[in-house]
């Protein structure tokens, strides 16, 4: 049963995952944390951090981890395979349909129009992680510190394009010494 659920969930994510790894986060989060509770919200945040620091696609990393924690080694392979399956099927159709034509204007315009929605999708994934479990409750020391770290990391990343791994390491060191 768990195998079928993993298969279904990650095929769905593979089909609907437009716009790269970050855009898939809210899909994965919704299924894995909210719907099936295979992972807690803190575990999800931790895995995203680990994915940032290790090579490889973030969605494959999450699929492997979720599969492993819910159904062991077999589950990890199954979840990763399920995530790739729609791509594998699509290769053959797309190569026949589109590869010969350079830049289909209909497809280009669809994607351009989709972009704002994808940005919203990514933003929602971030907001969903801004909760009591990850940030502490109102008035606690952890809450003030979390808001501070989040704000500083945001400024460093958005305005100064700081290296994400460096930011994670610095935040980890701060956490280690302050808490």
């Amino acid at each position, binding site marked *: 049963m768990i195998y079928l659920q993993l298969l279904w969930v990650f095929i769905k994510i593979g089909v609907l995952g437009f716009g790269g790894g970050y855009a898939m986060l809210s899909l994965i989060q919704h299924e894995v944390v909210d719907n099936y509770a295979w992972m807690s919200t803190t575990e999800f945040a931790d895995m995203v951090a680990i994915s940032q620091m290790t090579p490889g696609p973030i969605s494959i990393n999450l699929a492997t981890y979720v599969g492993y924690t819910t159904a062991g080694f077999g589950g990890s392979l199954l979840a990763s395979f399920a*995530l790739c399956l729609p791509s594998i099927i699509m290769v053959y159709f797309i190569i026949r349909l589109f590869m010969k034509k350079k830049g289909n204007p209909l497809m280009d315009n669809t994607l351009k129009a989709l972009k704002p929605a994808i940005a919203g999708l990514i933003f929602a994934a971030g907001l969903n992680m801004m909760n009591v479990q990850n940030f502490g409750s109102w008035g606690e020391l952890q809450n003030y510190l979390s808001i501070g770290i989040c704000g500083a990391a945001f400024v460093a990343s958005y305005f100064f394009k700081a290296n994400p791994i460096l930011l994670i390491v610095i935040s980890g060191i701060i956490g280690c010494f302050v808490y």
Partner: protein
Amino acid sequence: MKKSLQLFATFFKIGAFTLGGGYAMLSMVEKAVVDQKKWIDADEFWDMIAVIQSLPGVFAVNTALYVGHRIDGTRGAVAAMLGAIIPSITIILLLATVFHEYRDLPVVERIFKGIRPCVVALILAPSLRMVKSAKLNWKTAIIPLATVFLIWWCKISPAYVIITAIVGSFCYAIYINRCVKKEDKP
């Protein structure tokens, strides 16, 4: 067969050493496939990437599949895809066993308490950069706001939101294309 093995090795190396997501790996793929092995020329490569970017799914996997297929057919596609994902799967499996064991250690918990808010910032920043590059006006700004509202506030499944957005974008693209065609006719 030799080509497939080389494809596997190339994508394995990229999968094992490229940090920073799908787009960071593109220049490495180009270097290997176009400059060194000369399997395809740069123009064809970037045309392919333009199509691949518009597809759903894992970008690195899609790239591996298409490049692999172009160079050595089905065998090449499978070899390149396995090369791209095996390093990730191996690393995460190793880390997952370790992480499960040490997760509850107070030091580890303290470190991650610091990291979690940073992760949130690292997700919010690129989404705002996307909004900026999409050059929204006050009318189109409703789209990302509505998306956030539906997913975050109403807890509607992102799947439905994406399907709705795709249908909407597609209709809009048809409309735009018609307008362009009308302008072309004198």
